[in-house]
């Protein structure tokens, strides 16, 4: 037990938690825009994966991870249009649309990667982001190495929280977006373009999720593999639920999931006798219990319901 405490309190662990939480953070913040507009963000997995590949290819061919990131965000936004088309225009069941969308993204990214590099087992490397210590802050004892020696995109992920809070709660646009997720009929009556707002929410979701995905391929390591996101999009989705559809809640949940991931890696390495499966299962069990105890979930009232304009 003391070992475990030692692990949790170590600088290294906090650093890893922050690092592992940041792709989830970007995706979860993006997902909030979709969910608050009333569209389930289950397509996050496919959007993240799109970003992971697009960032890698962009960085590989231009040599600049920043160009890679930009291309990833564009591709994530474009790809999410397909999800929006199915969910908003075709008014499909959003779960079904997400299942199709995610598997399509899996196939498309795998094929695009093969198209670019053929079938080789050779590991292709692209230019990746380098850690950027923040002047002065990085030199602080303990806190410096924990929080201020990360990749640029990791800072962005954390700074996104106040931005999202402001946009969702302090702007008219944010109010419109939320109204579309709570009561689309009323919003429509007041002249809010329900379909357009939902498209916007989904595209923002795609752009941010792709940015999160790019951290996986040109951030922490610098290569791409099929199915590289490995369910992180679904974890970001769970973070939104755990965070009760609020930005602060989703932020904390993403941190918790990142920490659980970091802890699991360390516990395995140390050979501490806690089964790592139980630790991986724990956040989901906690979310489930929290939902059940809190009572009926406080999701946006119109979440998952297609809006029929006629």
């Amino acid at each position, binding site marked *: 037990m003391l070992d475990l405490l030692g692990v949790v309190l170590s600088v290294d662990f906090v650093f890893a938690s922050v690092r592992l939480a940041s792709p989830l953070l970007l995706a979860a913040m993006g997902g909030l825009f979709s969910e608050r507009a009333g569209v389930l963000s289950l397509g996050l997995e496919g959007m993240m994966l799109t970003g992971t590949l697009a960032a890698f290819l962009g960085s590989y061919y231009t040599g600049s991870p920043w160009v890679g990131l930009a291309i990833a965000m564009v591709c994530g936004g474009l790809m999410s249009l397909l999800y929006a088309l199915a969910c908003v225009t*075709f008014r499909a069941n959003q779960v*079904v649309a997400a299942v199709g969308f995610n598997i*399509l993204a899996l196939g498309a990214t*795998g094929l695009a990667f093969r198209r670019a590099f053929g*079938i080789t087992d050779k590991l292709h490397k692209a230019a990746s982001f380098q850690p950027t210590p923040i002047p002065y802050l990085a030199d602080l004892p303990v806190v410096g190495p924990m929080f201020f020696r990360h990749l640029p995109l990791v800072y962005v992920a954390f700074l996104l929280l106040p931005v999202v809070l402001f946009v969702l709660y302090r702007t008219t646009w944010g109010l419109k977006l939320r109204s579309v997720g709570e009561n689309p009929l009323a919003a429509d009556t007041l002249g809010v373009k329900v379909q357009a707002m939902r498209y916007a929410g989904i595209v923002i979701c795609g752009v941010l999720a792709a940015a999160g995905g790019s951290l996986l391929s040109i951030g922490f390591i610098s290569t791409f593999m099929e199915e590289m996101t490995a369910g992180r999009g679904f974890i970001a989705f769970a973070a939104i639920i755990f965070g009760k559809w609020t930005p602060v809640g989703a932020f904390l949940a993403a941190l918790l999931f990142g920490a659980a991931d970091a802890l699991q890696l360390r516990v395995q390495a140390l050979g501490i006798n806690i089964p790592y499966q139980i630790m991986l299962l724990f956040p*989901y069990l906690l979310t*489930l219990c929290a*939902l*059940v105890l809190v009572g009926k979930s406080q999701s946006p009232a119109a979440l998952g319901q297609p809006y029929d304009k006629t």
Partner: protein
Amino acid sequence: MPGPRRPDAPRLKLPAIHWENLANVLTPMAAIIASLAVGSLVIAMLKVNPVVAYGHLFRGAAGNLGQVTMTITNSIPLIFAGLAVTLAFRAGTFNIGGEGQLYMGALLAVWAGTALRLPLGVHVLAALACGAAGGAAWALVPGYLKARRGFNEVIITILMNYIAVWFVSYMVHSLLREPGWSPQTRQVLATARLPQLISGTSLHAGILLAIAAAVAVHFLLTRTGLGFAIRMVGSNREAARWAGIDVAKVTIITMCLSGALAGLAGASEILGVRFRLLDGFSPGYGFDAIAVALLGRTTAVGTIFGALFFGALRTGANVMQSATGLPVVAVYLIQGLVVLFMIAGTSMDVVRKLLAKRKEVAAGAGPVRGGAVG
């Protein structure tokens, strides 16, 4: 259960074509053709001749007896899991917890297959029953929470999928672990295995059970009071409540039946193919099941064909990869396209509009059933 006993009165004019059934066939066919067409463009972009690629895909899925039986074997869990989605959907409940229920079914089936000592015949039935019970128990939680507490079953089942997968992984690594270096359970005893149907092939008796399950679901939905209640709850919960149907009870029962079917998907895969349980043994059958049910237009019979199509794609993909170099993920693209084309097709209602026109001409027929997901 209240309600008339035989909602679908037998229609005696047998030769008449049921246009709604035709739509159930035409929409998936069109979606499959469209996705193969788009897929061929992508394949051509990869500098592979699409005709050659699809030829190998077909050869891999149905080229000889071995491949045909392999396709059918791979379809068995998809039929069970697809039926699970179909049944729940007809009651207006979205069971996307099939993956978790499948894992719990596999866990209990492997426990029964390794720990119990029962005579031949009885043992395999007991193991299957345990698998069904495992899935049903796992589905009871979201069923109860939805029916009595008003929770969204989508979110609950997603969370429970993760819990099940990691819990099963834990059991495989601890209590049920076979002594030795690799984390896996012992093999189920010979008495608990589903018998082989054709010697020298992978085909096992699970296919008979899967077809029986499809017939049972079809019979349940169309010929029983419970089935009528299920469909009524699925089409309009309020109306069902006013008609005196215990909506919560029907929802919970349906969810448990659905979970039992998903549990059988896991159990049949363990008792018929793998004989032991490993980490991550399912390649996402529970999720593919949603696409399978969609392709089958959420009918029991359609689900069988949807499962066969997906099973064929997965089976043929390996041969296609070794012959043309196209990666296995190419079939994911086709699967995703099928789902999206089904959505588009169902949404745009091409077939149904055509159908409505036909009906105008024919002047008067029953209402069109909107049974498809989407």
